[in-house]
């Protein structure tokens, strides 16, 4: 076998083997697989909301106002006779998209800042890390409250606010990884053959820091959803006419004292199931990507 011919198929083999390994691990781990399925279903529901929902979420019908769960309205109706299930289904869009957009933005910014801070070190690193420490002194929800007060609470601003609360975690994570990989031999090799710094950091080093980042981002999705829902519940996040599960729970809360439980219960349940799914997938990914952590949780 010639040496030159070996390299290409070996690379292909490795990724195929990784896929097989992943599938085997998933099959042995039904909890992670189940959680992954829940997320896929949620994404499909968000994508095809108008086709999945049995009713128009905004269609009012006084004849059916405040009905408990029936065969017609599986999760009941609200004061205006709107179908609870259809509203929850349509809200899936905001509840999946906003945390996802926030996480993606935070990931991009956090990875870049953390990577260069860790690679260069020195005063840049010092300043960045002091800022990260200061930001981490604010609990995410509290910082988000202050930020929405300052920026206003349009959907775009909520995305920015949730992204800002996440950035410090990624910066710290990637910086730590970068401190490790920058001393490795392949980093030295990349420097020796005269790559520019940005190329070394982005092309050669950053990809090797991605696994823990993926785990963190998955867990962050759930956390971002919780923060957004709490903001909206307090009336500081997503507001009507846009609907979101936290905001729907707040609407339902006023009906508790008259016993209409379905209005607060189901949107909250939707939040819990979604957050649970992201957390379980995150834990499963951690076990898969970082075997050292296995069993410690």
């Amino acid at each position, binding site marked *: 076998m010639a040496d030159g011919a070996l390299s290409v198929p070996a690379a292909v083999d490795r990724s195929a083997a990784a896929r097989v390994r992943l599938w085997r691990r998933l099959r042995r781990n039904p909890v992670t697989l189940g959680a992954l399925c829940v997320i896929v279903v949620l994404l499909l529901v968000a994508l095809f909301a108008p086709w999945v929902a049995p009713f128009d979420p905004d269609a009012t019908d006084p004849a059916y106002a405040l009905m408990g769960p029936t065969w017609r309205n599986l999760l009941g109706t609200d004061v205006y006779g709107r179908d609870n299930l259809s509203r929850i289904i349509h809200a899936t869009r905001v509840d999946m998209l906003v945390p996802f957009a926030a996480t993606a933005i935070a990931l991009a910014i956090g990875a870049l800042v953390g990577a260069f801070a860790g690679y260069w070190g020195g005063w840049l690193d010092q300043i960045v890390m*002091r*800022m990260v*420490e*200061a*930001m981490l*002194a*604010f*609990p*995410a*929800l*509290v*910082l988000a*409250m*202050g*930020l929405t*007060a*300052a*920026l*206003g609470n349009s959907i775009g601003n909520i995305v920015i606010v949730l992204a800002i609360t996440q950035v410090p975690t990624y910066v710290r994570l990637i910086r730590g990884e970068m401190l490790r990989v920058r001393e490795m031999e392949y980093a030295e090799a990349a420097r020796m053959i005269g790559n520019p710094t940005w190329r070394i950091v982005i092309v050669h080093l950053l990809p090797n820091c991605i696994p823990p980042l993926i785990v963190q981002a998955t867990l962050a999705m*759930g956390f971002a959803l*919780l923060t957004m*829902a*709490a903001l909206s*519940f*307090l*009336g*500081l996040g997503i507001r009507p006419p846009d609907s979101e599960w*936290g905001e729907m*729970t*707040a609407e*339902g*809360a006023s009906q*508790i*004292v008259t*016993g209409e*439980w379905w209005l*607060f*219960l189901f949107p*909250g349940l939707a*939040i*819990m*199931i979604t*957050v*649970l799914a992201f*957390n*379980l997938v995150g834990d499963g990914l951690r076990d898969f990507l970082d075997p050292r952590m296995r069993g*410690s*949780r």
Partner: protein
Amino acid sequence: MPLASYILRRILSVIPTLFGVTLISFFLTYMLPGNPALVKAGALATPEHIAEVERQMGLDQPVWVQYGRYVSGLARGDLGESAATGRPVLRDFLQRLPATMELTLASLLLAALVGIPLGVLSAVNRDAAIDHVGRVLGVAGVAMPTFWTGLLAIYVFFYLMQWAPAPLGRLGTGIAPPEAVTGMYVVDSLVAGNWRALGSSLAQLALPAATLAFSVMAPLARMVRATMLEILQSDYVTAAWAAGLPRRRVIYGDALRNAMIPVVTTLGVVFGFLMAGNAVVETVFAWPGMGNYAVTALMMKDSGPIQSFVLFVAVMYVIVNLVVDLVYALVDPRIRLS
């Protein structure tokens, strides 16, 4: 001497963090939409009058001068004024601080009383039924939105079973608050021997405290479990078993005592969770604390209180972490030597 230098370094390390914290909270205030001078001068003010008020408030100065004024104001306890109550924010805060402290301390106590034993039992009986219960509770606990847990509690214990009083504030209707000592009704009514107020305030406190405790109990139990597992595998525990010491003594005497140190250091993080939860829980239960005050103010577009609340929580977080680290250093000689 190394201890003294460690303590000094740790205290000094707070300075850049506090600088960053005040910088962030300053920009949160600075970025606020609207011109505060305009609000203060009133709707009928002439442009000259507005300019005069701006000069008085220092709004015509460069940003860094404004930051300096902001920090020196903070040092003098000036948190600005609330447009809604028309009073200094600091006074409003101090008035509501006892309510928040009462709720936070009660839930911390509750979380520790349930979370720590649960973590120990899960570690000792690894993979047994109690461990699985703990795991399920842990996974569910962090996924449940705090406001939803609170509403569930209200629906079940107030509406359905009618065990709990109406979720409206700190005392039942018609009950006079006890003579103020700490401002925490439960403590004050104990001091005064006012059993009626004690019963009512405990009943009012039960649901919000349990709700808040539930949100931090799960991570606490997981932390205790992980630390206990590690310690149960250490050499000195093995030696204790080998020496034939009784099971209770090894687990609760030797292992748990050492497991508590890392657990206590995470108190700062737990505190952060509690403060974030506070704003939500106080709103759900109409608990007249600082979080509720900040949220209410924000609804009325009154942003002074909210920014002060954000700053207060962050500064408290930094201080709690500092105190925990210092206590840790006093208790554990390994810290000083490293």
